[in-house]
């Protein structure tokens, strides 16, 4: 309507084969995008370019304020030749998969079980939002306390005679990595639950009722009506959780500092300690570049999906 008033041409039907002409007012103005482009250029693209430059240079406290000597891909070669880096990549993969499984399956189960429970559901969603807003330092410290050898979970396990000795969640074998991944997955639950809840609300009620009338049981209704509707959401949620998991730093830092040894060190933590504890900025940058590439692998399909939808 606004268009008609401004241009006075909206009432004219475009001729067959002629592309409708957009008025100046409706044409997306490049000018509107300029501030955002400038912002992203200054705060994302430029630092990213410098990060890449740092990863192909020798940067340490002696050189950081001067010209960075270019070393080509030497930092990456050293990195890929380092067995600890390989172990860290595998730990990151395991960590990301555990976070993904807990986040997606937990979120889906939570959303399904809260469906249709108004009062209880509202209360639980409020709790989930609270959980989502908790600073990682708080939730990480809480999990550290809960999982310690004399913490609540071990007290529970021992007192219920499920185990005879406390489980050393933060010490033994793979448990530190899995414990940190569990905590990081737990914190993804609210996001996944709310996303799945929104998707569930989108399912036409009549389809579910029709399936029920046709004699479909709960599992069949889920498999043939609910799940097809949830699939795109699951895809997007999975990509976002994987991206989060690959760059996740906080829980490992708070709960185990990446230890014992490096048992729960993932790529971001390795990059952090290389750059900010060992002052080897170029190695830290190389690790960050590798991490960014991995995150991009997940971000690109997401961007494509969102773009297609729009």
């Amino acid at each position, binding site marked *: 309507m606004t268009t008609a008033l401004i241009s006075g041409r909206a009432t004219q039907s475009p001729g067959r084969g002629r592309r409708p002409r957009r008025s100046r007012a409706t044409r997306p103005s490049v000018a509107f995008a300029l501030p955002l482009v400038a912002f992203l250029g200054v*705060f994302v693209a*430029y*630092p*990213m370019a*410098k*990060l890449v*430059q*740092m990863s192909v240079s020798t940067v*340490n*406290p*002696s050189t*950081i*304020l*001067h*010209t960075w000597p270019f070393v080509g891909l030497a930092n990456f070669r050293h990195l890929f030749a380092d067995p600890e880096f390989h172990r860290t990549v595998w730990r990151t993969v395991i960590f990301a998969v555990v976070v993904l499984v807990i986040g997606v399956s937990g979120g889906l189960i939570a959303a399904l079980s809260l469906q249709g429970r108004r009062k209880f559901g509202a209360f639980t969603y409020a709790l989930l939002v609270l959980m989502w807003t908790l*600073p*990682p*330092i708080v939730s990480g*410290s809480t999990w550290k306390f809960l999982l*310690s*050898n*004399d913490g609540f979970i071990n007290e529970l396990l021992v007192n219920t005679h499920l185990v005879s000795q*406390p489980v*050393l969640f*933060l*010490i*033994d*074998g793979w448990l530190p990595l899995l414990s940190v991944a569990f905590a990081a997955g737990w914190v993804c639950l609210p996001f996944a639950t709310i996303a799945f809840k929104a998707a569930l609300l989108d399912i036409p009620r009549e389809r579910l009722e029709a399936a029920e009338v046709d004699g479909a049981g709960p599992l069949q209704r889920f498999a043939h009506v609910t799940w097809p509707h949830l699939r795109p959401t699951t895809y997007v949620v999975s990509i976002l959780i994987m991206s989060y998991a690959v*760059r*996740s*730093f*906080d829980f490992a*830092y*708070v709960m*185990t*500092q*990446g*230890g*014992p*040894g*490096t*048992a729960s060190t993932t790529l*971001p*933590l390795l*990059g*952090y*300690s290389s*750059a*900010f*504890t*060992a*002052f*080897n*900025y170029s190695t*830290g*940058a190389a690790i*960050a570049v590798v*991490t*960014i590439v991995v995150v991009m692998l997940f971000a690109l399909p997401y961007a494509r999906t969102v773009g297609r939808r729009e």
Partner: protein
Amino acid sequence: MSMKTKLGTLSVVSLLFLGACSSSKSSSSAPTSAPAPTASSASSAAAPAPSSAAAPVASSAAAPAPSSAAAAPSSAAAAAGPTGSDVKATLTIWTYDQMQRDNKIQQAEFNKLYPNVKFNVVFIPQEQFANKLIASATTKTGPDIIWDNPAYTQAFADAGVVYDLSKYWSAYSDAGQFPASVVNQANGKVYSVQTYSNLNALWYNKTLLDSLGIAVPTTLDELQAAMAKVKAAGKIGMEIAGTPGIEGEWISKPFFTDWGVTGYKDLGNPNTEKMFAQVSGWVNSGYIPKGDLSLSQGDGVTKFEGGNVGFFVGGNWLISDAQTKSKFTFGVTGMPSGPNGPGIVYLGGQAEAIGGFSKNPDLAWDFLQTTWLSKEFETATLAFGSIPSRKDAVPTDASQPIEAYAKAVEQGVPISSDTANTLLIGNLWSAVLSGQTSPHAGAATAAQIAKTAK
């Protein structure tokens, strides 16, 4: 260096940091993040602040004489006259110690000499401190006075963000009072001085040992035998931090020197494996609770305070808090000696330096020598559990814990500035103690580290 490059350096350091932290908050609040060897731990351990009541130097009677102005080669002081009232300046101090952020005692004392000098104290969380300092130098606008971990002296000197104190130090009449181990040098120049030391020693539960008829151990073998007896009595042998990174390396130092591994270059020594085997053996035998290895030193002390633990490898900054909370008598002794040498500890604490881009380096030096380096102020550090660096600042009738730590200071060594390998050795210590890595594999990794050691 062009402005573009400077901006790039700033932005990329920020990106690295923010990227690493992702959605997290400042790591400063992480309870386990602060490495023990520094004075920030003192504040986190609830050590009493050097209030005017606690610090004898706060009274005007104990105020240091303004002789420092004459001792320093300070043009500012020389021009200032006897009162220094002509000097108008603001000294910016960067510290990661919350206690120092609020401490005005030294400033008040200095203002008696220089009434028109103002102070701008900037608190920066420890984890961010070194990188902020290095990044700030891109604009050549750093602080006048720096309080930071002495381990970073080399990195700061390399980055040019600390001032060469050599000329001041060589002219300083009291320089001889400071052991060489607290005068931090890099590239042959003096860059910082520790006014007090934080270091480890062996704490023992005297009440428990007396009840079991155990003498205070002086060697590793005696310690092992004592822990076995304590464990046999149903108690915990020893609490020791098995955390990775800087703290792990800080704790491990005396155990390495016990076996004759005195520096990173010696890590290929076959005794490294023997050391690892002995200490991990204590974990496997149950003398050290494996589940507590994830606790930092600051958390481990709470276990010791419970009264069921025989020994604890603890720092002096934890003493006053432990004395308040423990309902038993405990003592402190030096780290036991081993088959190949004494248990030598690192001398942590805060290193005082002058910013590389300070516009008032003379005035900053005046401040340091008039206050923090003076005997009166050094003695006052005892009040909050630190061990003065000055030889003449430790009272001859010092109480038992202080005396034990003061003795350890004499043979202490500076923290390594080889930060990359410090990290690796700390991780290795943690991995071996927790059983993630065998002593044999740990020794092999240590030998690899030795090849790149500085």
